[in-house]
């Protein structure tokens, strides 16, 4: 069994976003592997560990992005992934275009299972997993919060519009992750050392014949002006009375 786990490098959630010249400026900001993708790497490693011999599992981490995206691949390798594939490009690919790259790599690798994040922390997109599944004509399980392999079947639980569902699906399949799926491990020092020797195969995007379908015209940080009237609550009743008065008379949001 071969698992591809997608890793995307995004702005650390703790960092503030800056816009320059109509685009988000990541220069000098701390970039990390998308947390949603960490869940995917961890889950792939757990499936490999659970397989113990009968059918060996190989975990391949895939990144599509600029040179610096290699850092996230290295993190995945240090967590335990076997090797990496890096499709190098400075182009901003939307999820539909990106899915064509992922599907081609998956075919070339003969992958049986793909993990990707339920939502990307930069494009706020949820489309990648389903679009990739469609291109491969595979089923998908999205927002997965529990997963287990039983032979050729994946048994799990995922979140839907209201509540959650338990499911079964035969692989090959695409699984998108959700919080709660697992607690991603930290790379240990020996594993970091080992990962340095692991292979990362580089391919230029041009080899895939993909063109982005969306054009970004501009970006803005729209900060809604907030009143920031913060009261001291030492005298709880007085503060409560004043707050309710403001909500009624000034904001008009309470009857």
């Amino acid at each position, binding site marked *: 069994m071969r698992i591809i786990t997608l890793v995307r490098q995004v*702005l650390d*959630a703790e960092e503030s*976003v800056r*816009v320059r010249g109509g685009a*988000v400026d990541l220069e000098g900001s701390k970039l990390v592997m998308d947390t949603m993708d960490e869940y995917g790497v961890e889950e792939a490693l757990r499936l490999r560990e659970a397989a113990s011999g009968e059918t060996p599992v190989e975990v391949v981490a895939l990144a599509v992005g600029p040179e610096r995206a290699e850092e996230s691949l290295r993190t995945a390798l240090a967590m335990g992934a076997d090797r990496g594939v890096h499709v190098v490009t400075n182009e901003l690919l*939307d999820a*539909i275009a990106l899915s064509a790259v992922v599907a081609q790599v998956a075919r070339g690798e003969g992958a049986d299972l793909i993990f990707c994040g*339920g939502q990307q*922390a*930069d*494009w*706020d*997109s*949820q*489309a990648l*997993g*389903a*679009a990739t599944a*469609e*291109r491969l004509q595979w*089923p*998908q399980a*999205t*927002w997965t919060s529990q997963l287990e392999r039983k032979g050729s079947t994946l048994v799990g639980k995922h*979140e839907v*519009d*209201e*509540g959650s*569902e*338990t*499911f*079964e*699906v035969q692989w090959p399949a695409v699984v998108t992750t959700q*919080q*709660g799926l697992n607690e991603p491990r930290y790379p240990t020092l020996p594993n970091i050392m080992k990962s340095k020797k692991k292979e990362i195969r580089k391919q230029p995007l041009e080899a895939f014949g993909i063109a982005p*379908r*969306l*054009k*970004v*015209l*501009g*970006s*803005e*940080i*729209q900060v809604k002006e*907030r009143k*920031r009237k*913060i*009261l*001291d*609550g030492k005298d*709880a009743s007085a503060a*409560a*009375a004043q*707050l*309710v008065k403001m*909500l009624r008379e000034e*904001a008009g*949001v*309470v009857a």
Partner: protein
Amino acid sequence: MILMVAEQSNGVLSKSAYELAQAARQLQGELPNFGEVTALVLGSGVAAAASAAALLADQVLVADMPALGQYDAEVWASAVAQIAGEGEAQVVLIAGSRSGREYSPRVAVKLDAPLLEDVIRLQCESFGEGAGVVLRAEHYTFLSRVTERIETQAPAVVVTVKPGSFVAAAAGTTPAEQLDVDLQLPQKRLKVTGSIQEKTGRIGLTEADVVVSGGRGVGTQEAFAELVEGLADQLGAPVGATRAVVDAGWRPYAEQVGQTGKTVQPKLYVAVGISGAVQHLSGMNKSQCIVALNKDADAPIFKITDYGIVGDVKEIVPALIAELRK
């Protein structure tokens, strides 16, 4: 043709269908040569929803089949792509619900169309022979901190619309024609073996005018029930929660607000004992008026607060409830 997939739940047309109708009418107004607004209703036992949709669109296509009794991404995508393909839809509008955002990418791939996700604004620039339609849209990126303007041009474009971004269209008085359609549907491959409806007893978190949410600062599950639910009851509001609270098992996941939970945009959002992590803010930072109660004056939530009190929620919340009762 503009195709809008009118979502229904238990035979009742969803609020999102009215919002899609508004978006569809706006596009139609911008460029009359779009032709008809066609609503597609999918499900089993959906006559009432179809009749309601007939008051919103120029034409309604109804696929009322047992096989559509339960949502499935592959089945839905196949149904929508068949109708869009046969009707040569230039724009396919889909609600930005969790399911809509799940099957829409498959529709886009089937139609070889670009996908505009979770848009808050939509505008048609031009529409010419061969060149296809040029659509511009706005959507949020970077955990809802950035508003991005995007453009695409293609013979057909798939769009998901963020809930609450368009006002609900008013229903007309003359119902449009309803046509039954027959569809070739694929086998379901994701087998649903059980369903856990997280009953919260309180509905409409994403549609409410007022939302009261609690965080870890509330202290315990019991205190949450007393303080957060108490305040919510007083304000006639549903309850929201942070991930920390959901992880602790105090509240069901269905109530989680944030990046991996629900997005809310009420007139009033009250944050009780919530620190204001980016992932939480991404689900509520578009609220009209934000009130925060937190004992730490430096808590990040206060940066986006309109009205706040620095103090212990165990004292502040009961005082607030008492004051509101007056």
